[in-house]
């Protein structure tokens, strides 16, 4: 293994790793090329799920067509699950690069690689464009109904919401891929010398004229900062758009300004959770334990704990305002999404998005392990699945037909349970996302080699008074 023994003492024993950067490039490049048996098996398994998902989609389309959004509630949910992960994960790399946190270095590429899964997300979005009902009431002015239903687009602009949603989702995917490209350029430039065949061609094309001059490094870092800031704003905006167009505006009378925020936090949950689970797998079974220290999990888990508390706080802010207000429409929405219709799913959502992960990572010894944060991440991803089912299946089936144009939700609809094709679409969609990610890890190094090498310059193990401690460089 290309690393010294992990450092740390007392409760921090084995917390920090100091990779041997002289062999890192070669070792990571070799791992990127190799396809061990467990990896191949995972690829085959997720590939099968992908195919099952496609079958489910085809049957659903053949049975129900694209006229009504109701039967596609579970498809909307799985789209949103993948959207949350592919949107939220790259943001983690962007955010902690901004804050110059050294512990982020092993997770940067792991998170950016989710941008490639974004392409799948874009493809999944195309059918949803056709499913979204028109803003204007097709029956014109009808008593008791709105002529223009409530949306964030009000009465314009032209093409809203369908075309603008597509432009937004596509823009987000392109921006995240751009970040991945910028970030991976130095690594590709290094690997092009040792790679062969397709990889050599691919790395040569994408790394362009990168030779690592000072000017190039400055341009790359400035580019990452600028595109990162743009990505952050685009992501937040698109999460507002998707959560409003495909959830809130489909439930008559649901006016909830905190919902886009809850959606964004759930997305961070799912994205960060996916990253921690991936890091754990890479550390435990991928042979990267010399590069991914426990400190990454430890620091990451503290952020995760904060996000988890934020999630429940925002949820409570929503709940108490509606519950205390006692307005009929708000009571109906609570009954529909929280207590009655999707009450069980809500409880599971609450358990997996807050109670269980909180119970896991509140303990410092658990946070200091690699399995604890990864377990919390896995729980949060399950919580995210429940959240999306509750919200999107609920929204798609809240107001069938022209009920969508009524001013308020007047009765509480019954739950919609999944049929076999829904199940196939959900597991197929998730399987497809993992399948694409696995392929991406064979294309690009799963660790940002340059970033870890840079980190090795800024982190030392130094003598202080009578002991040895971590010395952290803080560049401006």
């Amino acid at each position: 293994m290309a690393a010294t023994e992990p450092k740390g003492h007392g409760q921090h024993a084995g917390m920090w790793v100091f990779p041997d950067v002289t062999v890192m490039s070669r070792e990571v490049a070799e791992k990127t090329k190799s396809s061990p048996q467990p990896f191949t098996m995972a690829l085959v398994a997720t590939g099968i799920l992908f195919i099952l998902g496609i079958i489910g989609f085809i049957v659903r389309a053949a049975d129900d067509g694209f006229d009504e959004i109701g039967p596609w509630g579970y498809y909307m949910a799985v789209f949103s699950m993948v959207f949350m992960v592919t949107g939220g994960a790259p943001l983690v790399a962007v955010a902690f690069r901004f804050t110059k946190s050294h512990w982020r270095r092993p997770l940067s590429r792991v998170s950016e690689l989710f941008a490639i899964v974004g392409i799948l997300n874009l493809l999944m979005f195309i059918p949803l464009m056709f499913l979204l009902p028109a803003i204007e009431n097709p029956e014109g002015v009808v008593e008791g109904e709105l002529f223009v239903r409530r949306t964030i687009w009000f009465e314009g602009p032209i093409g809203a919401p369908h075309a603008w949603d597509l432009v937004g989702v596509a823009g987000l995917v392109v921006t995240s891929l751009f970040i991945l490209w910028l970030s991976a350029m130095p690594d590709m430039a290094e690997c092009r010398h040792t790679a062969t065949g397709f990889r050599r061609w691919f790395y040569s094309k994408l790394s362009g004229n990168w030779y690592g001059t000072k000017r190039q490094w400055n341009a790359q870092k400035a580019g990452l900062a600028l595109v990162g800031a743009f990505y952050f704003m685009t992501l937040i905006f698109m999460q507002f758009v998707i959560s409003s167009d495909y959830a809130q505006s489909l439930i008559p009378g649901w006016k909830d300004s905190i919902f886009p925020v809850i959606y964004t936090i759930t997305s961070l949950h799912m994205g960060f959770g996916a990253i921690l689970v991936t890091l754990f797998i890479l550390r435990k079974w991928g042979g990267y334990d010399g590069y991914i220290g426990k400190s990454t999990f430890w620091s990451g888990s503290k952020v995760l704990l904060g996000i988890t508390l934020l999630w429940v706080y925002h949820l409570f802010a929503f709940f108490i305002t509606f519950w205390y207000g006692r307005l009929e429409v708000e009571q109906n929405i609570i009954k529909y999404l929280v207590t009655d219709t999707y009450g069980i799913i809500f409880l599971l959502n609450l358990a997996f998005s807050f109670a269980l992960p909180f119970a896991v990572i509140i303990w410092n010894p658990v946070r200091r392990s690699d399995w604890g944060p990864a377990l919390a991440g896995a729980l949060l991803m399950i919580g995210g699945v429940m959240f999306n089912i509750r919200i999107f299946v609920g929204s798609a089936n809240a107001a069938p037909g022209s009920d969508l144009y009524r001013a308020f939700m007047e009765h509480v609809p019954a739950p919609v349970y999944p049929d076999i094709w829904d199940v196939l679409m959900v597991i197929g969609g998730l399987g497809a996302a993992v399948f694409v990610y696995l392929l991406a890890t064979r294309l690009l190094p799963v660790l940002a080699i340059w970033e870890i090498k840079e980190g090795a310059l800024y982190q030392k193990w130094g003598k202080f008074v009578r002991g040895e401690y971590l010395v952290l460089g803080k560049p401006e």
Partner: protein
Amino acid sequence: MQEGTPLNSRQVNRELLVSILNSPKWFFGALAVLGFIVLVAMSTAGFMINQGFGVTGLNRPVMWGFFITNFVFWIGISHAGVMLSAILRLSKAEWRRPATRAAEILTVFSLMTAMTMPLIHTGRPWRTVYWIYTLPFVPYDYARGIWPNVRTPLVWDPSAVYTYLTSSILFVLVALIPDFAVLRDRTTGLSHRIYGMLAMGWQGNARQWKLQIIAGVLLSALILPVFVSVHSIVSWDFGMAVSVKSWHSTIFAPYFVVGAVHSGVSAVAFVLIILRYIYGWQNYIRHEHIDALARLLIVVATGWFYFFVMEVVFGFYGREADEIAVRNLQFTVTPWNIWMMIFVGLTYFAPVAIWLSRSARRNLWIMSLACIFVNIGMWLERFLIIVPGLARKQLLTFDWYTYRPSSVEWIIIIGTFALVSMLMLTIARVVPLIPLYDIKEGEILRTEIKIGRVTVPAVFRED
């Protein structure tokens, strides 16, 4: 290279205790001026209580005006203490060290000032006892069937604020113990006895340090939920009122909390700049600290702006007549629309534009201006939430009205600013506004890493 010169313990003690052991000449003059303003404001409040609310601009339906705006504003300022102290302590941000104490003390004083506002606003302050108590000796008119309603946020509010005040005082006191011991050893007579009592036998042994650190960490973690709950509950004073449509918004709680942090951290940055100037603490409150605060403020301001946009968008989203009437007043009717533009410009666009420039972040004059902008903007924000909502509360237009604050309200509001300034100045004479031990610890942990030809500032981290 490290910013600032290395400091030894003697120098830290001498320079940071200057505000206590050697009062500058201007001190008593400044105190007298501020005290006079406070006295005038108190007399005005007395006059108002004697004459009744007729001397204010409050009317039907705008029954909440400057006083409640000011109450929310000062509660907001108080959020800086925990934001800087607890969160940055837990996250081990090195640049927090000179800022924590001033922030914590500002928390305590702004909370105390905030709580005077609802008392004054009652018009008959002695009757506030009915908010909470129905004691046997309090002559309460049960015959009318009116009982103190524990289910109203107006009752949750004082409970939360007093909990926050108690825990903030505890938080400050625990952090002050080692510094009280330093003062105990450098004073004589009565001061020596008082500081000795407050130092609680502190000798600085390993066990005491360990306990003090654990207490600090525990209090940091425990105070965070209180900090969030306080402004959330303040927001629910408005958010739970379904009769005022523009107030009944689910986002109010986090929107208020982020806004509070925004104004509070700006206020702390401004206080630090003032302290640096008046006490000559250039070695302690360095440009890098103000720079770090400004960068934090960019994030906080952007978060705040996001919540603001959500609040406005979903205000229009519902397309309900009574809410649209409020939004029309806010955005299309002069002078409200002008105030609205000034508020958004001062709270977000102007300061963030300033903070994006590194040289502006390190220019203390420009930074002071930006921080003042934020606080004027945040004061206006509360005003523009409260007053237009009430002015358009009713569905029928003949019930609509406006609000014009009277000179009585202006004087009382100005008095609260003078009160906080006076209290800060007074406390600077009693406790060090920069924690001595925190600065010393930072100096010990400071080091450097050499990378090629470059020397990079670094710190030792135990964890």
